[in-house]
């Protein structure tokens, strides 16, 4: 019989990624670039919310968007056409999430064009928004190196999502509740939703919006602007 040798590893599968994410955050801090990791289920209105938010902020800060999808570049084209800000499409090649290494590669591919009217930020963006793959499971497990995680939950998905996807809600500092205009047609209990979100993360902020009409998107945009300023000035 063969003798078997055992080599102990005892290491979390996420360890290498966590280290890469920490290094990326350090680099972003040095450059004064705020990276937001935006997550949600497919069809929650991420792209529409982004377009509205960017249009409120683009004259104040320099913004770019990284779109991560398994395939296609419809989102990157749509964002660019609707806002004029730089966008890049990343393909995950079948993977259900983006990790820190892929994020760093995407960032390397984003180069500010020189025609910015925003003085002093010719070389770098102030804010880069990463629109992660539409999925409530895997993206939550992989630290992308972003400064903060935010997620969009839309009314038709139901107020019990924080119970079903605990990890996603525990890693997000900001939960935007979208499609508030269709509330009357769904059994969505905003109070319960708030309660469930705070069970997962007591510090999470919750902002209800309607991206289609633009209602209250300003509240999210203001939060984001504050975040960017704090990151750059602390």
């Amino acid at each position, binding site marked *: 019989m063969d003798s078997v040798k055992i080599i102990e590893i005892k290491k979390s*599968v996420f360890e290498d990624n966590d280290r890469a994410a920490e290094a990326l955050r350090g680099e972003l801090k040095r450059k004064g670039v705020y990276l937001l990791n935006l997550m949600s289920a497919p069809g929650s209105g991420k792209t529409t919310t982004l377009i509205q938010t960017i249009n409120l902020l683009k004259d104040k800060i320099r913004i770019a968007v990284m779109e991560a999808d398994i395939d296609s570049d419809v989102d990157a084209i749509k964002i660019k056409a609707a806002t004029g800000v730089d966008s890049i499409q990343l393909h995950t090649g079948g993977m259900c999430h983006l990790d820190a290494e892929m994020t760093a590669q995407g960032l390397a591919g984003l180069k500010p064009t020189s025609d910015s009217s925003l003085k002093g930020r010719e070389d770098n963006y102030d804010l880069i928004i990463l629109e992660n793959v539409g999925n409530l499971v895997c993206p939550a497990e992989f630290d992308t190196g972003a400064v903060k995680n935010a997620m969009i939950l839309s009314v038709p998905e139901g107020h019990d999502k924080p119970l079903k996807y605990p990890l996603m809600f525990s890693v997000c500092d900001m939960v935007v509740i979208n499609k508030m205009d269709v509330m009357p047609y769904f059994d969505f209990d905003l109070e319960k939703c708030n309660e469930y979100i705070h069970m997962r993360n007591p510090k999470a902020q919750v902002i209800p919006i309607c991206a289609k009409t633009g209602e209250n998107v300003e509240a999210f945009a203001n939060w984001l602007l504050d975040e960017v300023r704090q990151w750059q000035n602390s």
Partner: protein
Amino acid sequence: MHELGIVFYIIRDVKKTAEENGVKKVSAVVMNIGEVSTIVPEYLTDCWRWAADKEEMLRGCELRIEPIPAVTHCDGCGKDYPTVAHGKICPHCGSEQTWLLRGNEVEIKEIEVRDENASL
């Protein structure tokens, strides 16, 4: 497919360890998977078979899973209880001030290598 992504990370880590130890062929990989890690063990082993067989070093290599039961600790009464049966609320005192003690691990425990010199 969630588990497939995880498998690619396992393969990367295992290959690295094997190379560092001068190993050319790995016969088994042992994983510690927490009960509430969101990993479905059968999916993980299925994905493993598909992906590992594409790697020379891991062809035919077995993936063994040792589950770790999930345990939650209650700050309210100081007791521990099984997470899956009771969730977030402590069955002893009804407190919601609870946190996961263990059970979300996705960890590579060890790899097994047949002694090539012995079989030659």
